[in-house]
């Protein structure tokens, strides 16, 4: 086994070993030992990922797609199920992002949930989650991809319902799991459609033969790709399978940062990028992906302007940014989409961490209406939030500016009806500026709230009675709930280190790829996308200049409007809300997606379930099938039982009569 393959296996093995180690010996470790153990496992995994990167770069350009086969899992009847990893620039790129950002989030969690009763359990889950995600991105065939995909869904369920005594949290976990399973079904069925034609599960063999096995826009291929998209939409929270993501904010804040910003939701983007040879052969499916991504970014942007829950604002902005990425990779702007993935991982994890710090200062309260004036009390958190916000809003020279504009430039370059997506992308960028800075201005500017004042005097506010921020239920801090204490970044060095590193990355991340200047990501990912016709495109200078200026202006304009409305003249917000009451109601109620899904799917299913229970199960199953079978058996046995009298002589007589009868039969027959 060469060292590249070894590094890939090690990247995968450390988090798994970490899960087991934390679960087994974590409870015996003193203090925050379990947290450090989990963080250490992740750091080693990240180191292995870097090792893989170095080894991969050492290979010849056209040999940078290595398949590491562990063993044959099952090799029968035409199915070649292997435990194999595909190590190529795309997967190495993903493991670097996943392992790197996860390590920082682990580091943050070491302090952040320090007083929680489920400290050890949390790190075991967190490590398992990272293992699943790494398995997903390293998988070398469809089978392992599906396994990783399902593990990620299960891990996210466990982490969202981490505070299992909160009814709202367990409900959110169930919702996330159900929607993710829907995606799993899509992925499995999509795989089936593709496997039926190419006859192999291995990625590279599939991609090689896709040109020969499928005509352009072949019906089966389009169906398969759209089913794959269903899987991608469910994981990446795209319309209409997005409703789980905002609800998932019930989980602890590091979970939101890890799962719902940096890693899990990017799985869909990764899937589309990985399957690009299929999507390029089925442009109809790719267009569906691009349109849904575009819709998502607009819908999520509008909701983010109206919601008042701090974490939900960031959650909707995640949806919106993932919308950009899905749109990009579906429209063939692979490197740009993945570039946005990496910068988004930095600044979104940072925003969530800063939000977690604010929520801790508010003793678990997440409502923006009750926050304000934290600027002086929490300067470090404020700084991080602003850096993250500027990167998210796409203000130069922060990282989000370059990545978002790269996406829009490449989409604009495709021409045709793609200009609609191009325009929508800039509208979305404008919304991004508004909602990001609405959140920042409302939490950090204005009159300091009592909690902020207390903090300025050096007292961190801890609620006397814990209550669920979602519905005000009183909670028990001993079991399965957030601990009695809270930890803010200003007082915890580990949180500070994690946030500081991410802030730095959010500032400089954009330098990886500046149009016409640097193209690190483009050239690094090139071996994976070598065959793609859409990958090698030269943009016109005019378009680049226009796009960069427009992108910067739109972002700054959004921030300016937010400043004007929420800082300068808070009265305007109220007036606007009253003037546009119906629109505001639509946004606050999240475009009624939950109600729509309830009406179209949940309620009919419930009705059907009730009907099945009342009618089908009672009458057909209980009455006919079960009752019928027992009736027949009972009647038959009572007839046979009558013969069993218990008289010995009666039995003897039967035997003798039988033998005599048989004797006569044979005598007469011969």
């Amino acid at each position, binding site marked *: 086994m060469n060292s590249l393959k070894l590094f890939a296996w090690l990247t995968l093995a450390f988090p798994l070993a970490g899960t087991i180690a934390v679960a087994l010996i974590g409870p015996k470790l003193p203090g925050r030992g379990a947290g450090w153990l989990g963080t250490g496992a992740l750091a080693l995994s990240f180191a292995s990922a870097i090792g893989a990167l170095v080894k991969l770069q050492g290979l010849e350009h056209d040999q940078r797609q290595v398949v590491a086969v562990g063993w044959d899992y099952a090799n029968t009847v035409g199915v070649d199920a292997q435990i194999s990893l595909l190590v190529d620039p795309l997967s190495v790129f993903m493991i670097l992002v996943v392992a790197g950002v996860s390590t920082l989030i682990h580091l943050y969690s070491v302090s952040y949930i320090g007083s929680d009763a489920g400290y050890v359990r949390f790190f075991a889950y967190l490590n398992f989650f990272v293992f699943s995600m790494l398995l997903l991105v390293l998988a070398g065939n469809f089978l392992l991809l599906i396994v990783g995909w399902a593990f990620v869904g299960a891990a996210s369920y466990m982490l969202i319902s981490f505070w299992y005594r909160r009814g709202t949290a367990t409900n959110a976990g169930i919702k996330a799991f159900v929607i993710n399973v829907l995606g799993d079904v899509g992925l499995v069925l999509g795989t089936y459609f593709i496997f039926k034609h190419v006859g192999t599960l291995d990625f590279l063999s599939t991609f090689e033969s896709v040109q020969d096995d499928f005509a352009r826009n072949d019906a089966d291929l389009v169906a398969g790709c759209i089913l794959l998209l269903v899987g991608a939409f469910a994981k990446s929270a795209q319309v209409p399978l997005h409703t789980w993501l905002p609800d998932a904010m019930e989980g602890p804040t590091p979970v939101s940062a890890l799962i719902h910003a940096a890693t899990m939701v990017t799985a869909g983007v990764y899937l589309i990028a990985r399957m690009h040879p299929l999507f390029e052969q089925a442009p109809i499916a790719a267009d569906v992906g691009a349109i849904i991504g575009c819709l998502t970014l607009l819908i999520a942007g509008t909701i983010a302007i109206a919601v008042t829950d701090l974490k939900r604002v960031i959650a909707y902005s995640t949806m919106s940014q993932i919308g950009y990425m899905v749109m990009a990779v579906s429209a063939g702007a692979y490197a740009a989409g993945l570039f946005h993935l990496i910068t988004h991982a930095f600044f979104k994890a940072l925003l969530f961490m800063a939000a977690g710090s604010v929520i801790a200062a508010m003793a678990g309260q997440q409502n923006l209406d009750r926050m304000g004036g934290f600027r002086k009390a929490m300067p470090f958190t404020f700084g991080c939030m602003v850096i993250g916000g500027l990167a998210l809003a796409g203000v130069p020279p922060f990282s989000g500016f370059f990545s978002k504009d790269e996406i829009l430039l490449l989409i604009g370059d495709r021409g045709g009806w793609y200009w609609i997506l191009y325009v929508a992308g800039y509208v979305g960028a404008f919304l991004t500026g508004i909602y990001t800075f609405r959140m920042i201005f409302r939490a950090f500017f204005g009159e300091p709230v009592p909690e902020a004042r207390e903090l300025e005097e050096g007292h961190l506010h801890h609620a006397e009675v814990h209550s669920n921020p979602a519905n005000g239920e009183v909670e028990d801090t001993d079991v399965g709930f957030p601990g009695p204490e809270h930890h803010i970044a200003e007082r915890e060095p580990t949180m500070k280190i994690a946030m500081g590193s991410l802030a730095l990355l959010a500032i400089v991340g954009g330098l990886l790829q500046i149009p016409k200047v640097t193209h690190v990501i483009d050239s690094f990912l090139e071996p994976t996308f070598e065959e793609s016709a859409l990958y090698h495109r030269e943009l016109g200078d005019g378009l680049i200049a226009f796009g960069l200026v427009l992108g910067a202006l739109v972002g700054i304009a959004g921030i300016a409007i937010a400043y004007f409305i929420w800082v300068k003249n808070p009265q305007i917000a109220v007036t606007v809300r009253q003037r546009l009451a119906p629109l505001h109601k639509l946004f606050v109620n999240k475009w009624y997606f939950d109600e729509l899904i309830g009406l179209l799917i949940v309620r009919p299913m419930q009705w059907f379930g009730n009907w099945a229970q009342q009618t089908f199960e009672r009458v057909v199953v209980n009455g006919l099938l079960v009752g019928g079978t027992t009736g027949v058996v009972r009647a038959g046995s009572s007839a046979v039982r009558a*013969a069993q009298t*218990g*008289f*010995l*002589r009666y039995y*003897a*007589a039967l035997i*003798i009569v039988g033998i005599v009868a048989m004797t006569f039969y044979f005598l007469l027959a011969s």
Partner: protein
Amino acid sequence: MDIGWYLTVSALIFTIGAAGVLTRRSPLVVLLCLELMLNAANLALIAFARMHGNAEGQIFAIIVLVVAACEVTVGLGVIVAMRRRRLPIDVDELRELQG
């Protein structure tokens, strides 16, 4: 002598045994009658062995004797046990296997 006579005697003893098994209620007598039936079969076996002029039938008869001895041992044991537990010595009274 004609083999028919031997078989007639054998059939007669067998019938007597069978009739005894069917009509008598004492387990001791039932065992005796069973013994009669087995010996009737033995007689037939030996008669046929003589007719064919080989020893197989006779060996078979000896095995039947062995089996009969075992059966009587077990049967008498059961009857003694019944007696000790003061169960009725009557096959019609012992009908716990009724369905």
